C-alpha cells in the first residue's frame, strides 16, 4: 500500500501539473479538494482519466468520485480493492 501511495502522489503531481509541489508536500490523508492542493473540477476529471489510463479502472457512478478522490489514501484503497476483484 505504501508503495502505491508514493506512486500515486507522483502520478497526481504529473497529471495535474502541480508545479513546485513534491510528493512529500502531499499529506496522504488530507482532502485533495478544497483548501489542500486547490484542485478544481477539471482536476477531478483528470483524476478519473488517471485511474482509467494507469490502472484500468473506470468509475461507473460519478457519485462514487467524491469518496474515491477524497485523499491519496482513499484513491490507493480503491485501486487495491478493485484491481484484486
Amino acid at each position, binding site marked *: 500500500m505504501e508503495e502505491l501511495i508514493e506512486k500515486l502522489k507522483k502520478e497526481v503531481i504529473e497529471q*495535474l*501539473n*502541480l*508545479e*513546485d509541489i513534491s510528493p512529500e508536500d502531499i499529506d496522504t490523508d488530507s482532502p485533495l479538494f478544497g483548501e489542500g492542493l*486547490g484542485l478544481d473540477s*477539471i*482536476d477531478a*476529471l*483528470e483524476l478519473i*482519466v488517471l485511474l*482509467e*489510463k494507469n490502472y484500468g479502472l473506470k468509475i461507473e457512478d460519478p457519485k462514487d468520485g467524491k469518496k474515491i478522490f477524497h485523499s491519496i489514501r482513499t484513491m490507493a484503497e480503491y485501486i487495491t480493492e478493485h484491481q484484486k476483484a
Partner: protein
Amino acid sequence: MEQLINANIRITPFQVSVNGRTEYQAENFITFAEFIKPFFKSLNLGYPKFYKMDSLSKLGFMAAELMLRQIDLTRYDNNRVGVVLSNSSSSLDTDLAHQQSIQDRSQYFPSPSVFVYTLPNIMIGEISIRHRLKGENAMLISERFDSRLLFTYVNNLFREKKVDVCLTGWVELLNEQFDAFLMAVEPSTATFSGETSGALPFSPETMDELYKTT
C-alpha cells in the same frame, strides 16, 4: 473623446519589452515552455493555476500581467475594462495536442485539462479571472496583425460607451512560434501611470508603427 495608447508590451522569441524597453531576455534558443516558466517565476506572482494553462493562455497571461502593471486599474470599474485580442491560429496549438490524444482508438484518453483550452477566448477568460475583469471582451481571428480591425472594434466600444479602458492586441502562438503585442487604450483624460515616454494617439497607423518597431 479621443483615446490614447498609454502602454505597450511585446513578447517575441525570446525577448520581452515594455514600452519599447527590453525587460527580460533569454540568452539561448530554447523552447516556449523553457522561456515562459522562468519569465513567470521572475515576477513572483504566486499563481499556481498558470502551470495548468495551455501555451497560448500562458503567453496572453504574461503579456497582460506586464501590461496591467503599466496602468492604474484601480481607477476603473471592473465591469468597464474591455479585453479585445486577436490572432491568426486561434487555439490550433492546443487543438492539435487534443487531436493527438484521441488519434489512437486503443489509447483513447483525451485530457479534460487540454480540451478546455480548445477555444482561443479561454485566454481572455484566464486574464479576466486573474484581474477580475468583467467588461466587454472579444477574440478576433485575422490572417495577420490587423490594426484596422482592432481599431474599429475597440473604437466602437468606446464610442458606444461600453468600456472606459481596453486592453487590445495580438497574441499568436503555434508550434513554438509566438508573438504577443498588447496595448492599453485609455481615454485622453486618463493620466499616464507608466514610467516612460507618454501616450500615443490610438489609431491604426500608430498601432502599425508600434508593431513594426517594438
